[in-house]
């Protein structure tokens, strides 16, 4: 009898996932197989592969360390309850913060190593002292968010028992929505000065039906040389943010138009809404699994369950990573397609993606493991292949009666 509701829920989940997965990229589009050596020099490929490899190693080391620390903490962390004079929720917050702090501390050497590598390749200009002590505000915000999350979960668990995850998941979705909404206002940005790019942005946005989406610039050149852009915000807060590193003369105007069109594509296709939707789809089973995992420790209402809950959360996060990347790649591919359709300039797109290799040191054709675990965008070779496919697609469309 219990299978029927479960099956119904699974069907609803699958239906929602199908709806969110829909894309405007033509199903008939076939990406050609490309030889990376046609587009990139051997030294560029070598530099990108070498750079990525170290990043993968530090990620793997950091993740293993994180898991090891949390495993030990899950086993012994409940002992720190005796360091608390607060009630169960307060004690749970203490245990959560301690676990988080230990993970932060354990991962610090890997972060420093990664920074060293990025500085060595002139990708980051952040100083070691700044890295260690300059970002306390962000760390403090994470601690506070953790406390808030624990207060919500533990409060609900104590209120409604083992079904806490049912009201908690929508609550977290609400928090995610709130973050998505306010984030653009938290970014220090300024107006785009380049009048021709501004005019181009107006035209491209009009083509996409997302007129009046502000294009703003975020100054990051003091901390990184990486070029990047993003679509952020919902409704009145939505905007396209360009890193000033994109505008430092390394990219041509047609290439920058592709970037703006790509971000406008995100806005037009409602990708931030969809991201929140995907988050919601994962939040329900995620919180359910969390509730299931800590049941033997008394459930999420008990402070003693928190160390284990942290471990479970991290494991679930790691397991979800390939799926998250796949979803992200899917949406990025759609934004690429929208950029090609609106700019009708596949040559500029190819030029942009080719230039990303020396500027970002991104491996254009990574290994499958790298692709599954790290790539939240299509590979640069795939993106070039899409531009090539668009050329043929557009030519075919022009020839058809």
């Amino acid at each position, binding site marked *: 009898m219990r299978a029927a509701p479960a099956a119904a829920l699974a069907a609803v989940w699958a239906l929602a996932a199908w709806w969110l997965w829909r894309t405007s990229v033509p199903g008939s589009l076939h990406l050609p197989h490309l030889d990376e050596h046609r587009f990139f020099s051997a030294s560029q490929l070598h530099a990108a592969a070498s750079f990525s490899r170290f990043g993968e190693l530090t990620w793997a080391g950091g993740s293993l360390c994180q898991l090891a620390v949390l495993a030990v903490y899950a086993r012994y962390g409940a002992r*720190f309850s005796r360091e608390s004079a*607060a*009630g169960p929720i307060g004690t749970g917050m*203490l245990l959560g913060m301690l676990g988080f702090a230990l993970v932060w501390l354990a991962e610090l050497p890997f972060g420093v190593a990664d920074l060293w590598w990025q500085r060595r390749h002139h990708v980051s200009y952040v100083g070691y002292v700044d890295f260690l002590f300059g970002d306390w505000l962000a760390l403090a915000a994470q601690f506070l968010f953790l*406390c808030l999350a624990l207060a919500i979960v533990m409060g609900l668990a104590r209120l409604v028992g083992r079904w806490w995850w049912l009201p908690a998941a929508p609550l977290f979705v609400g928090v995610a929505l709130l973050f998505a909404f306010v984030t653009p206002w938290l970014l220090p940005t300024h107006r785009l000065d380049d009048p021709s790019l501004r005019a181009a942005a107006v035209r491209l946005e009009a083509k996409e039906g997302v007129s009046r989406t502000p294009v703003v610039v975020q100054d990051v050149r003091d901390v990184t040389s990486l070029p990047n852009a993003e679509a952020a915000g919902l409704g009145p807060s939505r905007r396209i943010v360009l890193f000033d590193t994109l505008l430092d003369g390394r990219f041509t105007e047609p290439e920058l138009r592709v970037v703006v069109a790509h971000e406008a594509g995100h806005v037009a296709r409602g990708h931030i809404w969809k991201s929140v939707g995907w988050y919601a789809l994962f939040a329900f089973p995620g919180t359910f699994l969390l509730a299931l995992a800590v049941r033997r420790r008394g459930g999420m209402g008990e402070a003693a369950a928190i160390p284990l809950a942290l471990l479970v959360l991290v494991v679930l996060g790691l397991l979800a990573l390939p799926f998250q990347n796949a979803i992200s790649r899917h949406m990025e591919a759609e934004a690429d397609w929208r950029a090609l359709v609106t700019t009708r300039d596949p040559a500029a797109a190819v030029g942009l993606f080719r230039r990303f290799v020396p500027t970002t040191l991104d491996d254009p054709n990574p290994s499958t493991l790298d692709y599954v675990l790290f790539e939240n965008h299509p590979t640069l070779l795939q993106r070039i292949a899409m531009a090539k496919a668009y050329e043929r697609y557009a030519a075919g469309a022009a020839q058809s009666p």
Partner: protein
Amino acid sequence: MDPHPIVLTVDDDLRRNRLTVFFRLLLAIPHFLWLFVWSLVMFFAAILHWFVALVAGRPAGGLHRFMCSYLRYQVHLTAYLTLAGNPYPGFLGEEGEYPVDVELPAEPQRQPRLTILFRLLLAVPALLLSSAFAGTGGAQFQYGRGVNARASGGGTIAFACAFLGWFASLVQGRMPKGLRDAALYGIGYSAQTGAYLLLVTDRYPNSDPTALLGGIERPPVHPVRIVGEPHDLRRSRLTVFFRLLLALPHLVWVSLWGVAVVLVSIPNWFVALFGGRPARPLHRFAARWVRYRLHVGSFLYLVANPFPGFAGAEGSYPLDLELPDERRQDRWRTAFRILLAIPALIVDAALGWALLVASVLTWFYALVRGSAPWGLRNLSAYALRYDAQTYAYLLLVTDAYPHASPLEGAEAELPPDHEPALHPLA
């Protein structure tokens, strides 16, 4: 534990001559000049003193007496400047010539060479704390750049007490006991620090207010006082290491609650002004916040070990606050409460600086030893207690003015091996 060899002796009746109080800084000008000359000589004498002591394992008798005179003179002059003493001090730092005096070892003592070698380094924590108290002393002078250090913010407690005491003495012809005691505390600690640095003793300064002011009469018990278990000095190293981050949710909560308390205090002020006593629910709301603030402060500044609860419940924390019920309050004091609280807020800010220094030092100590030092713990408890009294006064929880004396708060806070003759500090 043996009593500290550097003992402050006080024979002061709190009476002050208004005329000398009014012109005190001007009258002290000859002393400033004399101190400058003496300090110059001391700089070279202290270096010589250090070499002799390092070689011989014991300071030379003549130099020792010279150091003692200098330290004593510092105590006399600082007491005069901070209004902790009334008469004009002599220029030679002679023993027994001033009502605020210091007992120093008559003869030089043998000291471990290693501690002599690293004396300057070892004295750094005490110097930091001393700078928050009285901010004077041969200790700082020996740096050579001590003048800069002194000018840059040391002596906040002594300065606050002198500043407020000046007005009070001019009006009343008496120095308030609380301010006098607080200034004495700073003077005593600075004297111990100077004595340690100048090799008069190898005993480290003791910041425990009760030990420092052991011979002084204690003030009456304040209705807002700290109670609870003071002897548990154990500290969890892990929670100590992350203490600031762990305190973040409390800091946010105490701020939010504080905003509500301020808003509630406005109608409560009217109720207290016209009704003669604050409204019970509003009083309880504010009292809870004051208690919660103490819990958070105790956790943040390492005065206590456990993570506190968020409700400020009575008896929920090892260091707790006893608060009065809503009693009838003097209407005049209620009417001018904010103005009247300004002096207390000044002292509170000065003590806050000492609290910060003490907590940083405790942090390092607790990380290494897994416990808090008794002296620093008591100093911090004193600062927190005064803070609680100040906010209780400001928020109409009580109309009893905060008492700045480090000795207030009475019973049973002695460690198991502590001298029973000393007065405890809650």
